[in-house]
């Protein structure tokens, strides 16, 4: 049965040079989600050469978080199948991404250079989110 949820998000990025020049940007917000029924979270092994499904096609859109748990290999995250060539992010070892997309594409991932374990959540959103 569909439920209502609140997704709380806080994100920060800081970029620094060796000379000490630093820039930072951040934000926090809550996304109120009404009447959706697809919430997925967990860990999944993403092989090279085949697509691991992070999220099946949502009805309107989704909030996606993926983190590369490998200590060496990178992870490609795609909107749709990898054959669509829509890269949402390329995560090196230990890196993560977060995005919100208002489309009905699946989300898939592939390891680069070896199988990569990904930590993820995928939450369907509605048009008012």
């Amino acid at each position, binding site marked *: 049965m569909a439920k*209502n949820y609140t997704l709380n998000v806080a994100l920060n990025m800081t*970029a620094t040079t060796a000379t000490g020049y630093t820039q930072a940007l951040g934000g926090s917000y809550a996304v109120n989600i009404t009447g959706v029924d697809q919430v997925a979270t967990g860990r999944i092994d993403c092989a090279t050469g085949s697509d691991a499904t992070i999220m099946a096609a949502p009805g309107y859109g989704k909030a996606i978080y993926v983190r590369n748990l490998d200590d060496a290999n990178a992870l490609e995250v795609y909107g749709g199948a990898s054959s669509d060539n829509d890269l949402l992010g*390329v995560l090196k070892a230990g890196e993560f991404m977060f995005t919100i997309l208002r489309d009905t594409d699946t989300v898939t991932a592939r390891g680069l250079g070896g199988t990569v374990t990904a930590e993820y959540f995928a939450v369907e959103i509605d048009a008012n989110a």
Partner: protein
Amino acid sequence: MATQTLSVTASGSFSLVDSEGVTVFSFSPSFTTAAEVTDSTHIHTGEILAGTSATTINTAHNNKDLIYTFVKNVDTDYVVTVQADGDDIADLAPGHCFFSPVHVDGAGDASNNLDLDAATAAQKCQYLICDGKDTGINTDD
């Protein structure tokens, strides 16, 4: 020969709470990149009025093979779409932000851009982008 050395730190906090107050999940990831010399030349930040056609936020100096990208919609009215090489990678409602290490290149390195597109009407956005080390991939994005 002078070189540029860049490093990125990113952190996040995410929790999903249902209508009965139950926390479904909670994550607090963070990472700091190694200080990269190779391929890294440019930190670029600002606030821009994203128009109703592609408004480019990278520069010619960026390493389009990997750009750590943070974008925040700071306006009040409409969704802004973030595009890498013309493909949608985020749709940000007012107040929303996203972060991703983005491979901007199309097929053949050094092509195409990181753009903002406010489909309905121009919207203000803030952004911070920083070069990373080449991913080594050379695919369309």
